């Protein structure tokens, strides 16, 4: 987008200083970033491409009419970069903020920008992967499964709407915080006690929901029957269900959990063993 540089009242420096509070500019950069993030993720540079492309999208705002500096700006960011996209949006914001400062004052050397970018990537990814990939998304999906397991589309709709309703403001707020507050903003995020308390609360919710979803989704039964002194005892109905509904499913679930947690088996290995158990279980009627 071309920026009118012929307005005499505002100097380039003042214009650059105003960029950090320019809502239109921030919105435009945010939406470009949201799409750039998903493009050309490779093992060599991971999300590096999106950082370079965001700078390319900001080229006319930072260095209007100066192709050499625009190229240098993009070239600086064509390096490896990887974090978690949502929480990491603060890093894209910080880098953009620092590049604005560099364009304005020329006092932010590339070394500093790269060091800060690399230093923040891992801790932010740690928070993001835990809160987002291990807690929020699976818990939301568990609720979705609970709503849709009988065939209703409601679960999918709820999952999509709630996901977007949380992800959008979160990513946008952190991106804006990054541009405006810079590294201080990131330190607040990494060091805050609020984060630990939030994680504990979400963990609690998650465990309860998983318990409930296992109750509604896992239904493993045995068809074994015993003949004791002429009386036929159905193991599922007269023993397991009599103790507590679903107790056999619970035992099977615990066995799987034990293999994952205590035995550290991989998912593939467990699946292969389960296939064998299913075959044996089917023919011996241990599993029905």
């Amino acid at each position, binding site marked *: 987008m071309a920026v009118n540089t012929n307005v005499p009242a505002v100097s380039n420096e003042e214009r650059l200083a105003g960029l950090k509070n320019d809502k239109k500019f921030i919105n435009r950069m945010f939406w470009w970033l*949201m*799409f750039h*993030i*998903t*493009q050309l*993720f490779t*093992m*060599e540079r*991971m999300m590096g*491409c999106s950082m*370079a492309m965001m700078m390319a*999208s900001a080229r006319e705002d930072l260095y209007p009419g100066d*192709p050499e500096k625009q*190229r240098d700006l993009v070239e600086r960011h*064509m390096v490896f970069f990887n974090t978690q*996209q949502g929480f990491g949006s603060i890093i894209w914001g910080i880098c953009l903020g620092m590049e604005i400062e560099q364009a304005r004052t020329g006092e932010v050397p590339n070394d500093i920008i790269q060091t800060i970018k690399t230093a923040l990537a891992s801790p932010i*990814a740690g928070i993001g*992967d835990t809160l987002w*990939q*291990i807690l929020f*998304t*699976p818990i939301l*999906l*568990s609720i979705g*499964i*609970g709503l*849709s*397991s009988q*065939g209703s*589309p409601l679960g999918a709709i709820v*999952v999509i709407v709630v*996901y*977007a309703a949380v992800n959008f403001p979160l990513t946008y707020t952190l991106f804006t915080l990054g541009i405006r507050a810079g590294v201080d903003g990131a330190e607040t995020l990494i060091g805050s*006690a609020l984060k630990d308390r*939030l994680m*504990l*609360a*979400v963990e*609690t919710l998650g*465990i*309860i*929901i*998983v*318990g*409930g*979803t296992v*109750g509604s*989704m*896992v*239904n*493993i039964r045995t068809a074994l029957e015993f003949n004791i002194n002429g009386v036929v005892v159905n193991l599922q109905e007269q023993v397991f269900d009599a103790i*507590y*509904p*679903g107790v056999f499913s619970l035992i099977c679930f615990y066995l*799987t959990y034990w293999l*994952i947690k205590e035995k550290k088996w991989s*998912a593939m290995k467990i*699946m292969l063993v389960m296939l064998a158990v299913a075959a044996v279980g*089917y023919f011996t009627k241990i599993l*029905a």
Partner: protein
Amino acid sequence: MQITVLQAILLGIASYAYNSGILGGWIFLNICSRPLTIAFAIGLIMGDMKTAMIIGCVIQALYLGATSIGGVQSMPAIGMSMFFGIPIAMAASSGPEEAAALALTICLACSAIETPLKSFGNIVKQAALHHVDSFVHRNKLKQAIAATYIWQQGLCFLMYGLPVMLLALVGQDAIITMVALLPPWVTGVITTFTSLLRTLGFGLLLAGLLKNKAQWFLFLFGFALVKGMGISVLSLTFIGLGIAYLVFVLSDKGETTKLGV
């Protein structure tokens, strides 16, 4: 039920759109690649929402604990396979339970094609990235952005869109014939296998959540409310949110531990 040409084309387009990041970018990317949301799209296209969602839930349960951290996936890739595996299973089976078992089998079997296809795609992307670099070095930034999108979207269409269209059309007859020939015990074993698999997804998820053994009480609390008392998962969510809120408030600055002592 047969998959029509129009449905196959729509499935291909949906597979491309869901996997390429073009639907709302990052805002939707991560949730689009989930079995539950994919099943929703398939239900719309195939006109049988109920069966699609039941299958979606079974596959989602297995993939609940699946994570992708630093580009490393913990479960076999089925992001593309679902787009033809689920519709074909719907076409080939008589009931939702059987369809779910069949869909899961097709998807897991096809991950053997999908994983190398993904690796190949990554190599092409690597080359594409250097093509983009060359535009930047020549100071053609506008073209660099355009090249990024053309490579990514073109590749996604070739990797996710086209194969789904072709496999949905070509594969269905072969699989329907095969399913008709299967002896009943094979279906029986697969159905039993599917019911066991459900424990895996939840197990992986719980393994990430549980920090100490006392937290098993929380798990049993949720289990008992749903299984023993018949409370819906949605109601349980509200109860859980209430408890989570209490935990959040009471964990303030460790005051509670001091009070507890």
